[in-house]
């Protein structure tokens, strides 16, 4: 938010006053053979040269002063000090990174504790020349249960710390969710508003319209949008979603569907294409996504179970069906790509890379909402070989769930609860053309230790954006409050 940004500026000014008075020299330091325990953990990560400064603090709260020297393998040096966090100069940082693309930075950290300096074993940060998109769009809200307070969808410039609101729920009583862009292009955007003024907002060619996506021939409103690469279609699922609460302290919340189908919205014809083959009462289908060439629709599918007695047996498999974008028709056969049921696991949030090589998904013990499952991990499916592997490089003991690819497929963002077990934070990771994945790094903040520790909100649904989202909040607010909604037609497609 803008407020936080200004607080950061004030912190920067204070830091400037501090540093301008001269940095304290590291003298008589004892050498420590281990890497420094820093927060966020940036030891050995791979970053793009455009990323905002990786400011950090020491995990140990008793450190009085941190001294950081960053040495570029190809040249350049950066020296900074800070008490709670080291605040690096934005321009100097970017120059250093640009100078050292495809090479490493050597980071020497010294910490002053009880009046004495300790210098830790230096660690490296690799600077990749693979570009990262302009920014991220995500929702921030308190990780509550049934009630939501202030929330919003925000965009963050990844080369700086600037965060601005796209839409907050301060203009109306309701919640905002499920924002989606076509491969990160902010020109096309789908966004849901729930509550008294519920609507699906679609921004197409700069024009914003509010839709009523609920029809008498479908289950209900459209959710979980995914754009067709041509921009002519949006895949949605329609779900009768409920939530229940655990009485013991393992997983807090269980989100489940009592019914769900998959459908595709034909933008030009303003019609929802509902294939009968995907409207099966004995099967729940959800999380539809198009393949990179737009000729396949992937989705998750589970056999209907009794709730709550068979809750722990709900397992979603990864399936696919052909889709013809020329006429908006579906194939007649559903293929199961991964039968998670046989592994006694459940697949959620499939996301194919835009080059058609990989598909990333979240795997939990059961259910359709891995976000609240502490055991949930990220997996990567090689679409050419059909082999899937656990992404050990990025997973933690806690939840890894929602994820997304950058437009050039070299970076992905995912949400994780590893920080404290509840509040979801965003992590970014690099993947090279061979599928080699690097250690992830936490979304940088100006003063990360202060920021994350005082942030009682979770990030969710992170999406890369290739440029800043231009969004008229006033128009959107008026549109939402006006309750004028455009209805969608329905085109049923027989499976014969």
């Amino acid at each position, binding site marked *: 938010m803008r*407020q936080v940004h200004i*607080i950061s500026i004030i912190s920067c000014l204070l830091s400037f006053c501090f540093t301008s008075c001269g940095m304290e020299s590291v003298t008589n330091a004892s050498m420590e053979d281990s890497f420094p325990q820093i927060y966020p953990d940036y030891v050995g990560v791979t970053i793009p040269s455009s990323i905002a400064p990786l400011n950090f603090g020491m995990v140990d709260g008793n450190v009085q002063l941190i001294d950081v020297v960053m040495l570029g393998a190809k040249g350049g040096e950066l020296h900074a000090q800070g008490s709670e966090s080291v605040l690096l100069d934005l321009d100097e940082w970017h120059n250093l990174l640009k100078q050292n693309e495809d090479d490493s930075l050597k980071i020497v950290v010294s910490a002053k504790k009880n009046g004495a300096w300790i210098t830790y074993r230096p660690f490296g940060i690799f600077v990749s020349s693979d570009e990262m998109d302009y920014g991220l769009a995500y929702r921030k809200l308190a990780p*509550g249960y049934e009630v939501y307070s202030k929330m919003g969808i925000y965009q963050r410039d990844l080369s700086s710390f600037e965060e601005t609101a796209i839409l907050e729920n*301060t*203009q109306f009583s309701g919640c905002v969710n499920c924002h989606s862009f076509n491969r990160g292009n902010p020109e096309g955007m789908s966004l849901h508003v729930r509550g008294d003024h519920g609507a699906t907002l679609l921004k197409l060619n700069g024009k914003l319209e509010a839709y009523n996506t609920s029809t008498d021939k479908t289950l209900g409103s459209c959710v979980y949008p995914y754009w067709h690469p041509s921009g002519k279609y949006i895949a949605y699922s329609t779900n009768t979603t409920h939530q229940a609460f655990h*009485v013991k302290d393992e997983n807090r919340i269980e989100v489940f569907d009592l019914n769900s189908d998959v459908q595709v919205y034909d933008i030009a014809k303003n019609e929802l294409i509902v294939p009968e083959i995907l409207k099966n009462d004995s099967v729940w289908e959800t999380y539809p996504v198009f393949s990179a060439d737009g000729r396949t629709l992937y989705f998750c599918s589970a056999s209907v179970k009794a709730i709550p007695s068979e809750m722990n047996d709900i397992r979603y498999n990864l399936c696919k069906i052909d889709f013809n974008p020329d006429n908006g028709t579906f194939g007649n056969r559903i293929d199961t790509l991964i039968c998670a049921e046989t592994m006694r696991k459940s697949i959620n949030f499939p996301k194919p890379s835009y080059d058609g090589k990989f598909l990333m998904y979240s795997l939990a013990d059961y259910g359709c909402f891995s976000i609240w499952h502490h055991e949930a991990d990220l997996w990567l499916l090689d679409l050419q070989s059909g082999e899937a592997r656990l992404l050990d490089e990025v997973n933690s003991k806690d939840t890894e769930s929602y994820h997304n690819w950058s437009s050039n497929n070299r970076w992905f963002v995912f949400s994780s609860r590893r920080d404290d077990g509840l509040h979801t934070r965003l992590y970014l990771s690099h993947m090279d053309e061979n599928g080699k994945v690097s250690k992830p790094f936490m979304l940088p903040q100006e003063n990360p230790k202060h920021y994350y*520790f005082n942030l009682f909100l979770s990030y969710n649904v992170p999406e890369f954006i290739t440029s800043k989202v231009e969004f008229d909040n*006033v128009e959107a607010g008026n549109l939402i409050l006006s309750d004028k909604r455009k209805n969608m037609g329905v085109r049923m497609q027989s499976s014969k």
Partner: protein
Amino acid sequence: MIKWCATLLFGMFVAYEWGYINPHILSFQEQYQLFLCTSDYFVLRMFLPGGLADYLGEFITQFYYFPMLGACCLALLLVVMQQLAWASSGSRSSQYYAISFFPPLFLLAFMGDENLMLSFGVAGTIALALHVLMKQIDRWSFTYLLDLIIVPVFYWLIGPMVWMYVLLRCFRYTRKWWGGIVALELLLVQLLCYATILQQWPLENTFLGLTYYRIPYMLPQTIWLWPLIVVALIGLTHLSWFQKRHSNTMVSVAALVVVAVIGCFAIQKSYDEDKYEIIRQDYLVRSERWDEIISRAEKHQVNHPFSSQSVNLALAMKRQLADRMFSFYQCGVEALIMPMVRDMVTDLPSAEAFYRLGMVNSAQRYFSDIQESILSYRKSGRCTQRIVECMIVNGKYDLARKQIDLLKKSLFYSEWARDAERYLGDEAWIENHPVWGKLRKYRFNDDFLYSYGEREKMFGLLFVNNSENKMALDYLMAQLLLNGNIQDFMKYMSWVQQFGGYKSMPAGYQDAIKCIQNQGNVPNSPYAAYVQKMSKGNNQNVEENDTAH
């Protein structure tokens, strides 16, 4: 002398009435905020127009934690407001001193709407203070021009209440058109703010305030009515008739009496008796004054589910639920625990009951959702405290520490937070804690999904897990009686006899059994009356449904 006596009396009246007689009013306000003594908190408040008034309002409200202290702060604020209203007045005749009591008295009356924030009164006081200050330097010619700077700055500091200042200044301008220019400037500033910084807020809030009312999109008329009344009253004193000096002590005293009567009448009328009885019950639950809840309910009980929950909780805490439950108002099957309602009040007794029963996850859920229901987007010190306790009982120490660090930044929760912090990770110490240790033993042994419709089963399971959990047994039997589930009630009577710890069969159960045996035909039976009321209600519902079909 009379003036000072009147002011002193007024201050004492506020301190006594709000601090001693009605402390619940202040406690209610305090529990829906968590004022932090940090620079971040101040800076965050200052990002919206009215930020300073909001900050100061919350600063004062934090003292409501101790109602007497809070009432003294409130009294001081209102006395200052009264003095400023007097200083703003156009007449110096002591006969019109009484008029200066109207702004604080009407404010007190309007504060009967529990969602009106103290920032509203603070903003009004600052606007009056600014007016008085500018009045002092009016003799300098540049003060007119100074308004062009002051008004936008104070719009940011105190919000749209600065309109009151602009209107009051109009009485001072010799060139009346200057008032129009200042007003136009303010209007343009507000529109500019809306178009740039306040795009995420409705236009109405830009003009009527973002921080004066707890529900931003439901602003009441009070928001503009009070400043208009103040301007009208002060404007009245600028009329030539009021400029004449009178010095009749009797008339002054009479005027003060008339104003006091009008003020008291307005205050009495604006504080809804039933609503504030519920707020008082909540205060008593918070303070664990169970006997007082019961004794007040014996005299008068509001027919509201909140009241049923509070009284039942109090009865359970005093182990009188089995004996006397049906002697009090029971709203129906929801009289013990309410389903989650999206407001910040209704579920408080349910959340407290969950906590005491050992349903720690449910307590945490209810307290979290209650906090999220605060429409001014504030945190609640009371809820955060309970959430921390639930996290400690569940062994979620990292999360508890995060919340504790927040509480440590407050003035009145910090000591408790520091004490709680010492328990983090110390299992043996937690086991020995009189409440947390007990709740750890009371918790469910196995996980399952919470089911509101099967409350009695959950209470039963709690008791089966730990037969020392007598409250769970009392709630189980009470829920069965509320549901009219006689079969299970009779079935579990053996548990009551074996584990209930009662010397003799509780009177309430005897009555219920008598009702069952006589098929409800028991004169003066509280349970029979409840059953009749419920079946009458059900029949009415069935008839209404039939008619609808």
